[in-house]
């Protein structure tokens, strides 16, 4: 397959993915905006006033980066896992498998589709947050790069989940029992400086903790983690997950008999 053919195939997958979540915007774009808006109202505005400062910032300012990142993570993941599993469920994934599209093009198409939804929801949530807090981005490069890399990581994770999933239950288990606890314990609502040493150590094992804090650094200029180390962790996760996806696609795990 020539390079321009591969590009057309890639573009086709991306457009189809964007069209899919755009078609069902009431299920994909509106609910996260409402949920995160409620977090701003309840935790940021009502409870946050009583909390006062966190990590040297007003509580509302402190939680805004974490909530934006939470929206990006959840939506990048859920777009890929639900879309790819849906293709498996309806057997329409066979259209792709029979066609001459290389595995890495298939994977990249779904990653970009997941990123697109993650970023779209992230932008919506950012606009909502402006109703509650004044945001001044301290480091635009770090802010954008960490959000892009994080959405790649969770799009890849969603792809692996979809490959192994055999039922709709299987695509909700990981988000419910793994992803949500990791996000909530990843420093979205509190600074790890408040935690005792043991729980500080446990937090350091949570990759989402680095993503949330690096994003917070980009917006507020303050973080609980070393930024270089956080980017290193992100790159390592991307390499491991991307390689795993390619190997699973080559073996045909969950796809070929």
């Amino acid at each position, binding site marked *: *397959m020539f390079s321009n*053919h591969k590009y057309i195939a890639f573009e*086709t997958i991306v457009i189809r993915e964007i069209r*899919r979540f755009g078609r069902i915007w009431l299920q994909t774009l509106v609910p996260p905006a409402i949920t995160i808006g409620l977090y701003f109202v309840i935790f940021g505005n009502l409870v946050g006033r009583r909390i006062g400062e966190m990590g040297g910032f007003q509580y509302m300012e402190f939680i805004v980066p974490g909530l934006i990142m939470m929206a990006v993570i959840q939506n990048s993941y859920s777009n890929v896992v639900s879309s790819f599993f849906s293709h498996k469920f309806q057997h329409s994934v066979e*259209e*792709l498998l029979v066609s001459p599209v290389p595995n890495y093009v298939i994977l990249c198409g779904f990653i970009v589709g997941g990123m697109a939804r993650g970023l779209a929801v992230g932008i919506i949530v950012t606009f909502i947050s402006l109703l509650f807090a004044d945001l001044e981005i301290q480091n635009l490069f770090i802010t954008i790069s960490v959000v892009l890399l994080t959405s790649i990581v969770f799009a890849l994770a969603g792809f692996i989940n979809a490959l192994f999933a055999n039922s709709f239950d299987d695509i909700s288990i990981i988000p419910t029992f793994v992803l949500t606890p990791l996000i909530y314990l990843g420093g979205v609502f509190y600074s790890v400086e408040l935690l005792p040493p043991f729980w500080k150590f446990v937090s350091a094992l949570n990759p989402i903790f680095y993503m949330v804090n690096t994003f917070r650094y980009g917006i507020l200029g303050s973080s609980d983690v070393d930024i270089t180390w956080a980017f290193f962790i992100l790159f390592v996760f991307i390499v491991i997950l991307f390689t795993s996806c390619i190997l699973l696609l080559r073996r045909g795990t969950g796809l*070929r*008999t």
Partner: protein
Amino acid sequence: MTIAISIQNLAKTYANGFEALKGITLEVEQGDFFALLGPNGAGKSTTIGVISTLVNKTSGSVEVFGKNVDAHVYETKLDFGVVPQEVNFSLFEKVGDIVMTQAGYYGLPRKLAAERCEKYLRKLGLWEKRNDRSRTLSGGMKRRLMIARALVHEPRLLILDEPTAGVDIELRRSMWEFLTEINNNGTTIILTTHYLEEAEQLCRNIAIIDEGKIVENTSMRKLLSELDSQVYILETTSQIPSGFDLNLDNASLEIVDEHCIEVTVSGGLSINDVFAVFSEAQIKIDSMRNKTNRLEQLFLSKLESND
């Protein structure tokens, strides 16, 4: 003659130990209209699955137009299109989008993809439905959509896994005409079907697969010539006189009613000899058809001899 597809010693054992294919060998020439027949579970769909890479083979090799499917996976996939047995497109997408998306997977630029999409949707009577969600299509339309989708990159080889299953007679006939047309235009076609009449009408060569083994692989003409006897139903415009007899060796008749007669011909006797007797008796024949499908008789005898 170029070989469109060459299958050598293909074997497939599923994880549960079921041997779906037991080392089948098969060749289909370019331009052929080839039938792969067999009862349920014989290995037809597994064979198509291996060719289209949806099923991982246990051993053996598959070449498409001289290129090994494993070694040249992307080049070989450009050469064939597959119409599966079950509907396998997204039921939430529009008809036109499904075909356009498939064209995109094959790297067709948007303008060319749009032209091909219109061409094949028109040919298959789906152009008016292009903006409808695919779930609203009838069963026959869904099958035609899968054919349009498989043809959008204009493959040299088209593989159809029971394309007319559940399709009404009128639609089946129109699909036969369409498939014959694209075959006449040079596309090699491999067809699996349960309708033996379909294979007999359309295909030049045939393989019968049973329990994962090829039990017959020959031309349709040669296979049909193996029949010992054939039974014809003749409808006449003039009344058949009572006591009418053919008085021919190797032919017998049974009068069904005064305008219908059943003739059994065997032992190399030509049907023309029968017509000559009717002509002599000034009985005009209006129509003639086989009482039972000829291929069906042979198909069953091949399966019986494989048991």
